[in-house]
């Protein structure tokens, strides 16, 4: 009988916390829909925001848990003033999701960049302190089986919501002079938050001068879509630098990946669709003027560029150096098929690793394919200070052969430059970037 009584007592205990969810005490001063600011100028943002919101530089903005801009239908605009710092709360894995139909207008300046960072004290920060920035758009993705689904929509990693649609020219707003640091909480296997995830984002979006630093997972990942980007700096990551999958067809010029000495997997990781290699629309972006820097002294730092799972890509004026496993690997039959069709072409790509190629049994020779491309070479890359984790200089040394000879794709998006790699005479990474390790 005693056990019965104990059971009943426990039951009474349980019954108490049944339904009651209403008691959330409110000590804040100003409160609007999901935003509350206190006397110390800290504004906490949480939940779903469906009214336009401006984050001003005079306040500290704290993202508590998942913060979702918009309701996936109507437009909500999040405007962030230059010089504003937004903190992702570490204890609740704060993250910011821009939903479809809504926009982020984060338009900083070289002197007053917009910074998304960890809520921890500077000096104690580390990778994965908070979630990251996720932008969901209405451009096409290939995650569905093409014949059966008219408009393909997909559900983002880590509960980041739906993305994809039928408008490749869709706009999700502006990211200019923006830094995202110490983000990338690992949620579960296959559920990693990237520094910035562009999920089905359209070409109407402006992305220029963006740095992702000390992210636990990939720096920038494109899930389908057609968004274009310029001046992208990705530093000291836990995983891959720039990653794409599920049908990205955008353009990118002036991109740098620099791995840290303690972590990092591949510089570029490029997939079409890892479950169905022929899925359409196929990943086939255009990239020009990219510098990919490994960390020769570290245990990780595997591959400079891994092209696989059926991706296509047009890569021009690229420098790859310092990777331990190899500079270039191409995997899977569907990817090699794109070499023959012309959807995968490399021109003016220079490789400088101890081993430049990974050759797998039963697959065509990567080296032969590479050397067949115009201007491709295995040669020394003479950057001023490529491997310095604190004060790198990505510029080419004076008099370098690589300062000329490049040819950008014939498209108005691409600035016509002659140099190979991401940085020419002018160092666009000056002033607004960081290399702080904690």
């Amino acid at each position, binding site marked *: 009988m005693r056990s*019965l009584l104990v059971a009943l007592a426990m039951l009474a205990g349980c019954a108490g916390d049944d339904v009651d969810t209403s008691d959330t005490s409110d000590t804040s001063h100003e409160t609007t829909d999901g935003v509350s600011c206190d006397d110390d100028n800290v504004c906490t943002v949480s939940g779903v925001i469906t009214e336009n919101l401006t984050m001003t530089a005079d306040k500290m903005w704290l993202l508590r848990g998942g913060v979702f801009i918009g309701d996936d239908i109507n437009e909500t605009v999040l405007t962030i003033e230059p010089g504003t710092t937004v903190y992702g709360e570490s204890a609740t894995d704060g993250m910011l999701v821009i939903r479809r139909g809504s926009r982020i207008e984060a338009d900083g300046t070289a002197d007053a960049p917009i910074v998304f960072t960890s809520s921890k004290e500077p000096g104690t920060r580390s990778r994965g302190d908070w979630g990251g920035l996720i932008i969901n758009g209405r451009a096409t993705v290939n995650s569905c089986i093409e014949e059966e689904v008219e408009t393909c929509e997909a559900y983002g*990693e880590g509960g980041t919501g739906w993305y994809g649609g039928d408008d490749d020219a869709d706009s999700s707003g502006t990211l200019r002079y923006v830094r995202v640091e110490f983000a990338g909480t690992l949620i579960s296997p*296959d559920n990693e938050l990237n520094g910035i995830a562009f999920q089905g984002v359209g070409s109407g979006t402006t992305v220029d001068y963006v740095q992702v630093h000390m992210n636990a997972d990939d720096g920038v990942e494109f899930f389908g879509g057609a968004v274009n980007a310029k001046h992208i700096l990705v530093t000291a990551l836990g995983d891959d630098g720039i990653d794409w999958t599920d049908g990205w067809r955008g353009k990118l010029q002036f991109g740098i990946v620099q791995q840290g000495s303690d972590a990092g997997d591949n510089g570029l990781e490029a997939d079409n669709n890892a479950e169905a290699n*022929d899925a359409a629309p196929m990943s086939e972006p255009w990239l020009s003027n990219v510098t990919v820097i490994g960390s020769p002294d570290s245990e990780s730092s595997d591959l400079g560029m891994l092209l696989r799972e059926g991706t296509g890509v047009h890569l021009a004026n690229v420098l790859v150096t310092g990777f331990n496993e190899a500079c270039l690997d191409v995997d899977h*039959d569907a990817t090699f098929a794109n070499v023959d069709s012309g959807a995968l072409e490399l021109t003016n790509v220079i490789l400088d690793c101890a081993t430049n190629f990974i050759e797998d049994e039963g697959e065509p020779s990567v080296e032969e394919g590479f050397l067949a491309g115009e201007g491709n070479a295995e040669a020394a890359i003479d950057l001023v200070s490529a491997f310095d984790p604190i004060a790198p200089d990505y510029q080419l040394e004076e008099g370098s052969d690589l300062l000329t000879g490049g040819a950008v794709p014939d498209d108005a998006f691409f600035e016509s430059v002659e140099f190979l790699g991401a940085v020419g005479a002018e160092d666009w990474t000056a002033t607004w970037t960081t290399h702080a390790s904690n």
Partner: protein
Amino acid sequence: MPLFLALLQVVMAQEAPSQGISGQVLNAADGQPLVDFWVMAGDAEARTDAEGRFHLDVRPGEYEVTVFGPEFESLTLPGRTGQELTFELFASEEEVLVIEGLKSKETTSVLLEERQEAVGVTDAIGAEQIRRSGDSNAAGAMKRVTGLSVVDGRYVYVRGLGERYSATTLNGSTLPSPEPERRVVPLDLLPTGLLSSVVVQKTAEANLPGEFGGGLLSLRTKDVPDRPFARMTLSTGAQWGSTFQKSIAGSAGPTDFLGIDGGHRDLPDSIVQASADQPLAEGDMFSDRGYSASELEEFGEAIPNRWKMKERMALPDMGLSLALGNRYNLGDTRLGLIGGLSYDTSWDVDEVDRNYFIVGANGALEPSHSYHFEESTHRVRLGGLLGTSLRIGESHDLDWVSLVARQTDDEARIYEGYNRDLDGDIRVSRLRWVERMLQFHQLRGTHRAGPAEVSWRYALSNASRGEPDQREWRQDKEASTGAWRLSDRPEGNQILYSGLSDWNHDAGLDVASKLREGKVSLTVRGGLAFTAKNRSVDTRRYKFESKGSMAGRPDVSAMDPSEAFTPDYIDPDGFQLSETTRQTDNYSALQRIGAAWTSFDVGLNEKWRFVAGARVEQSVQQVDTFELFNPDQEPVVAESQTTDFLPSTAVTWNFRDDMLVRVGYARSLNRPDFRELSPATFNDVTGGRETYGNPDLERAILDNVDLRWEWYPSDEESVSFGAFYKHFQDPIEEIVVVSAAHSITYENALGADNVGVEVEFRKSIPWVSGLYAAGNLAVIHSQIHLDEGGIQTDSDRPLQGQSPYLTNLEIGMDRDRWDVALFWNLSGPRITEVGAVGAPNVVEQPVASLDAMVGFGLGHGLSFTMRGKNLIDPVHRLTQGEETVESFREGWGIGLGLAWTPLE
């Protein structure tokens, strides 16, 4: 044993009082009265009192009156109402086991009788059959029943419908589940030694819970005996490929052999206190909570070093059970008592290769990952039962039963092999300890007055699951050096604590009254039922994060975790303990169901029986998924409230004494599970894909039609042929969502149909004494029509887990001193995993099993059994298109058992 026939008719009978037959039963040797002997005539029964006297309530007329009891020859005399009869019995020469299970629900014949009497279509398996087939838990026993298959060794699929469509009751009361993502009780939790029978009700009826899909598994605990009773069993077994194999294991605690952790795996107190109301993490700029790096180092160093994958030898399986019971007469009050204990332990060592495929160039399947799994499980089950029954006069029965069943799996697993994403080898090791427990306390009563009968029940039960201190770590193989390096990926360096508790109150009141008897009889029944369920799930995750440069040092990352996670390297510059509890790990849920029902039961000339009834059921379900440390964040709440009207009707035509046809129609429903309703994304703590629920889910409505012809050539024989059709409106199905990780969600599918035929027989073979054959076959066709919401390859396919055919065959011989039987089971191909983005479904190919048993009576209440399990040991093959995903043999086994029944 012709006695049975007459006896069994008695068991079910209930008769109005009349003049009757009286008499006395005496021992022919010494003239002493024989107490508590059975007497029967027509369909009346009685027991002799302390003077050996009896009275039978029968209608006026002439009867054959039969008397029997233990250790005496039975005797039948002609008698007339009003007559006084005296029986003198002689002691029996033979050791007859006639009486055991006479009134108990354990024997085949009683269950067959019950099936014949039932309103709807039922099938059953009793303890007698289970004992013979040697299935030690309820799940194993269920695969012998027509149209049932058992998935993962624990969930029962009735008529090809997934476990969500099979509800379980124990003595008529609903049960909670210890599984966080499910509602049903895994049946392997219940030792068969504590059960008397399982009846599978395949037709919904007004008096049964409205949530009814393929069937209701109605379990009954062991009956309170009618006389002193004692039974002890000992068993042992060995399995090829497991027993005496060296395999992997974690470090053991002192009480592990009982399946009780006993605190060995508890989180250190300092960490419990530190993380009681905040996560174990460094503080930030905006709060005064959190810990410093040196405090976190201390917490990390307090974590016991249980990271070593050790070696252990699997021992033979062992089992022990004890059951005792008695009955006491106190005037006209009879008190019965029963107690049972059961303990068993088993070992399982498996090694299997599993291949994964993706759709590569030109639509061809291409290998992706390929892992070798090594898995070792030591399972301990403990069960206890205590029951009393009180019969006051002839009108009042009270029963109380308490049952506790627990099952503990001590599991170690390593999988190692090629990972396509990494383009290299990984090794993931895991140690886990899972305790599942069900407690069940029930009080029930029946009261009779004239033609009316009132019965009621109340049960309080709790299901719990505890998984303390799961450890998981991943190592990646460095291609150049071959070194295995600790990986900081999400499955790396993890420590998980997870607990679930589900409390269930279940109360019911049923009233029946026989308003009219004779050529046209009428019985009206009605009742009320109420169920309240409260569940809470509490999970904490921690990991050793590679925080600083020391963790990445080549010599450190190549260490075994038991060397790396030591004070030397747990450091702000090395590994740091941090909390990784997810936002959706914790939830509480409740369900309330209230129901009222009534039914009318009309008999015509004892040939026809018409039953029509209806049930109204109201249900409220709510799930709150909350973030432990974000109190401002409103929990993700999902709610569902429905009221349903569920009519049912059945017609039985007894066109011959031993033959009948029945037809039934019923409407039933299927509600979403708690987690299926909640939009919060979660990963099953038991592993598996990321899943999120759908708050817009509707409950599904099922229309069920059954038809069955049944023939009972004798009391232990039966033949039946049946057909069924079910139409599902808005069935709840899992779909694969378009996403990088192929998440799972649920939707109401457009519809589904399930149609099938079932054949079953149990027949003695006349020309050899004791020889019998039994078998069943179910052929089921199911088709689900999915909306185009997902990326599953097939939108029209059989339900997942459903075999198109299931069959059982049993041949045996039953002699006085020995018996022997062969059991064969075959299930058709079934989908184990739904394919997505053009990849075919993963299908488990048909597999057969053959078991055998021989039993001997050794005298003095001793009996000995020998079993052969899985004798043909077939290859299990899982295929995807043309490719083999997995192929393995389970291994054959032998078992020895000794039973001692000093009293029965």
